[in-house]
């Protein structure tokens, strides 16, 4: 339990840093750390597969994409558009509305019955593999057609046509 609180604190702390850091590149780096804490959460919840996917896809692929886009956009203080007062007021109003909504929904919260997992190993890769290759074998196999179609299409669109004679 203590580990959970530590990780939860780190998640909140780093997500705040994402918002408050002035430099967008730092912001993205903090976001990566935030995602990493999420990965630990998944491990704590016994969802190993989800943890690995989160680690590879979010931290690996998507964040690299983020960094690339930032690099291409070349964000800095000079290129940042000035925000007028009206926009700022609108932002404050919207933020307050969100806060009120959140507070209202938190008030309606109550502690539900603690959920007891019937099968504590449910998130393990082993079980997932069993389901995937037994019950969901056909969708798994058919996905190959989807990937192949997408691959053929991507090559088709990206390939340079030879010059028309």
């Amino acid at each position, binding site marked *: 339990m203590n580990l959970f609180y530590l990780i939860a604190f780190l998640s909140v702390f780093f997500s705040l840093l994402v918002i408050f850091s002035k430099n967008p590149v730092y912001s993205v780096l903090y976001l990566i750390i935030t995602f990493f804490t999420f990965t630990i959460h998944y491990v704590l919840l016994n969802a190993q597969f989800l943890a690995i996917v989160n680690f590879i896809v979010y931290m690996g692929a998507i964040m690299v994409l983020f960094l690339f886009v930032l690099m291409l956009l070349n964000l800095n203080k000079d290129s940042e558009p000035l925000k007028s007062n009206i926009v700022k007021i609108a932002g404050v109003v919207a933020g307050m509305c969100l806060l009120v909504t959140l507070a209202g929904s938190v008030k309606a919260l109550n502690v539900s019955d603690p959920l007891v997992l019937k099968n504590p190993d449910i998130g393990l890769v082993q079980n997932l593999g069993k389901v995937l290759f037994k019950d969901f074998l*056909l*969708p798994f196999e*058919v996905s190959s*057609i989807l990937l192949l179609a*997408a691959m*053929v299409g991507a090559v088709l669109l990206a390939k340079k046509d030879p010059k028309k004679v």
Partner: protein
Amino acid sequence: MNALITISLLALFILYLGLFKAYKALLPVTLLGLAGAFALAVSEWNSFPTPIFSNMMLFDNFAIAFSGITIFTTFLVLLLSKGYFERISSNVAEYYALILFALAGIVLMVSYHNLSMLFIGIEIMSVSLYILAGIKKRDFSSNEAALKYFLMGAFSTGFLLFGVALLYGASGSFDLEGIRNYIVSTPKPSALLYTGIILILIGLCFKVGAAPFHFWTPDVYEGSPSLITAFMSTVVKTAGFAAFLRIMLNCFAPKQEFWIPVLVTIAALSLLIGNVTAVYQQHFKRMLAYSSISHAGYMLFCVIALDGSSDNALFVYAASYSVASIIAFGVLIILQRQTGNDSFDSFNGLSKKNPFLAFTLTIAMLSLAGIPLTAGFVGKFMMFTRTLATYHTYLVVFAVVNAVIAIFYYFRVIVAMYFKPEERTELIVPAYYKIVLAFSAVATILMGIYPHFIAGLI
């Protein structure tokens, strides 16, 4: 299942043929393979099977009938493709393969018994179509069509997937029967179920292009190459509605009182927007795009009047709409290729020089408008009587008014062809086109005169 395997393998085989530069063999092999797939699909007729692959798919008569008609329509569309792709670029084999991949997805869409199969089927079809819409790489409107279709399609897939997830949250099952059992056995289902149904409805309405989720249709249909538009507005639309009807019939039927008002609104809006906007179009292709929205409205009637014979009504309507659209697009392709224009004026005087083209196009227009003795009339008649039987009188009255509006713009083409004389050169009609046009015209009239041929099929 055999049809699905055949089509998938055929697509791979076509890719290999392209690799070894056997361009002459592409079309014959594709057509031969499709004929084989059609025969395999039909041979399972009336075998009353059980769901296969741990309840993933079910090849009942519904699935076989709709696989059959989609395979057959693809066959007709591909007959029109003789010499079409070669003009666009040299990667002809890939285009055929992508059309076959889309067809494989469509076979999944009409035979699923599990929502995960529905999702994968729709994705296979859509991904292939995004690319096919943009195969004219140098053409700006084709690029626009592909991008628009991709963004809108991805968006609607999100709705669909979220709906599936919520249904799973409510019922704990992806299986159509499992969800139905949950709906029947739970007197007060959770709110997740209703949200899920609505989200799935929205996702599917996007895919079939029913208003108010139609806004991508005109631009995509207009920008895509005409042959691909023909494929989209016949095969894809039929498959979309078959998937729609399958989930409604097998899964959500016990909750009719909840979703029927929603669908009535959507159907009425599709009719109104499709027909009224089509009146103002100056170009044949764009008019066909809007008319396809209105036909989506008519086809929704089979879901609104939901009972055991809905599949029959949809089958007849889809068949009549498909053959008539193929004629329309066939003539459109010839016209675009040889005059470079598809405005209504370019049809002037067509009856003098090309009486055969003019005649078949007239039959197609009459069928789309729903004039008696054509297949379109039988389709509309079945839809309307069934909807009346469920006491949606106002909707039917509204639909009849819209059908009258539709006559106006369909007849504009006929008037231009027959009553506006103009000197023009004769259009050359290739032999393949003649076969397809003649066959479709004969089929339209036969279905109109002897509807019993197919009306009692499923």
